[in-house]
């Protein structure tokens, strides 16, 4: 019998084996629980095809009088994402300062700040939207607040991590010479972390463009609402046009943020 030299490290191998076992058992369990049958997709193949060729294609434009409205709804979605992310980023910056033990003037409360952010973050944006709809009523403002909450919480975490990665010795040495808290922030943290913060900010803008479309679907306004109403009224051909419009919007924004990120991290 030939002995084989192990090709990968033992602990890695254990990780993979564990991952595979967990995956297979979860797969079986979930298939059993939901009675999901992938063959349904295969047997419904013609229904799919019919749907795509007859309902979806060819592309149709909505009535000419509605077109300006659709473009302005795209603008609303973009504006919603942009302003919500910026407001959230400004708030998150100040809160994140108190969320890092090494930076905060009150290290004892850092854990509480982070815990609060974790709570906000782990509830999806749409759930926030629904909670707020039932108190503030339906409208763009509520979509704005809902987006703000989740991206605020996400950025608090990201900013705290950026600060912990970067600027400990800088902050410590400034503290040693007696710099006050605002001085420490403006002279040590801002210069070294700003590009990291901005790169997270751009990521959040990308995420929020999608999220604001979704929040729009349930009543936040914007292009999501337009799409939702066309789908609900079975105008799938027009819906496809709007889907293409959304895709174009997202791709363009992704391209722009990608370019900006490269420029920022240079």
């Amino acid at each position: 019998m030939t002995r084989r030299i192990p090709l990968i490290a033992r602990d890695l191998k254990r990780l993979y084996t564990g991952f595979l076992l967990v995956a297979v058992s979860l797969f079986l369990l979930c298939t059993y629980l939901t009675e999901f049958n992938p063959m349904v997709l295969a047997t419904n193949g013609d229904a799919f095809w019919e749907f795509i060729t007859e309902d979806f294609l060819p592309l149709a434009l909505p009535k000419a009088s509605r077109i300006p409205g659709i473009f302005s709804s795209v603008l609303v979605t973009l504006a919603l994402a942009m302003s919500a992310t910026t407001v959230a980023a400004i708030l998150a910056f100040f809160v994140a300062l108190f969320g890092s033990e090494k930076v905060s003037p009150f290290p004892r409360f850092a854990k509480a700040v982070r815990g609060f952010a974790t709570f906000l973050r782990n509830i999806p944006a749409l759930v926030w939207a629904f909670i707020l709809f039932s108190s503030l009523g339906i409208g763009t403002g509520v979509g704005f607040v809902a987006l703000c909450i989740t991206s605020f919480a996400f950025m608090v975490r990201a900013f705290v991590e950026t600060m912990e990665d970067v600027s400990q010795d800088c902050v410590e040495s400034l503290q040693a010479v007696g710099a006050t808290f605002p001085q420490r922030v403006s002279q040590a943290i801002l210069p070294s972390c700003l590009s990291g913060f901005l790169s997270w900010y751009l990521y959040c803008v990308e995420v929020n463009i999608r999220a604001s479309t979704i929040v729009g679907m349930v009543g936040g306004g914007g292009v999501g609402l337009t799409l939702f109403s066309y789908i609900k009224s079975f105008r799938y051909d027009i819906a496809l046009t709007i889907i293409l419009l959304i895709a174009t919007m997202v791709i363009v924004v992704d391209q722009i943020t990608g370019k900006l990120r490269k420029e920022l991290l240079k």
Partner: protein
Amino acid sequence: MNVNTMEYSATAKARPVSGKKPSIPVKCRQRNRFIPAFLIGVAVLSVLSLLYLEIDWLKMASRVGDIGLVFWDLAHLDFSNMDLIASSLVETISIAVLSLLYSLLLGIFFGMLAARNVFRLPWLSVLTQSFFTFLRAVPTPVWVLLMLVCLGMGPEAGVAGLCVHTTAFFTKSFAQSFESIPDETIEALEVTGASRLSIFMNAVLPAALSQIVAWAGMRLETNFSECAILGMVGAGGIGYVISNSLQGYDYGTAGVAILLVFLVAYGIERVFVRIKKKFY
């Protein structure tokens, strides 16, 4: 970041000094010039967006007190519908896991097609990449809504709709992982005459495996929260319970459901933070 500042000071020294008296600069002059411009641009755009949205702040502010009331109502947990909540939560988790696993397989397959170094067919990778860029750009609930039309209510629509976006995400990230494999490895195997597929199975895939596991863990969190919101746009699951009971002023049930969503999401996050700390 420190490395960066060092590089900047090196370039700054090379620049001719134009001042008369040499003095120690107090301000860090080597900052990225682009950042202030970027900040101003962002500020202007955001203010314009806020103005464009025309949000009725006064009306919102007058109702802020109601948020407290709603939370107060949500905090009165009502466990009487627990079996409904539990079964829909299980359904939601299962849909998230199933769509993750199916897309993992699909993602590896399409990632193989999309990676430039596996088949060395530029047109194939460009075609796959651009197709999946389109799929990725459309938010998940849209796909689920369309799947609901095709397949009717049920887990199939949820799994299929989530799979579209997840597969597109995996295709992009796996292709990136595959492309980060050093060319030497692949060339060495090419020289031995191994076929394209066996190069992929024996060199590229094993090398990217740890990244695949990491991506899958990251995606599980996203999939769960996406799955939780799917109910709100018309599919089943926990989201349907939340939106339905909120709209029916049954805040106790909604409170329990939201709390459970939070706990599961938090649990998934903690587990993967643990695993990450152990292995990286």
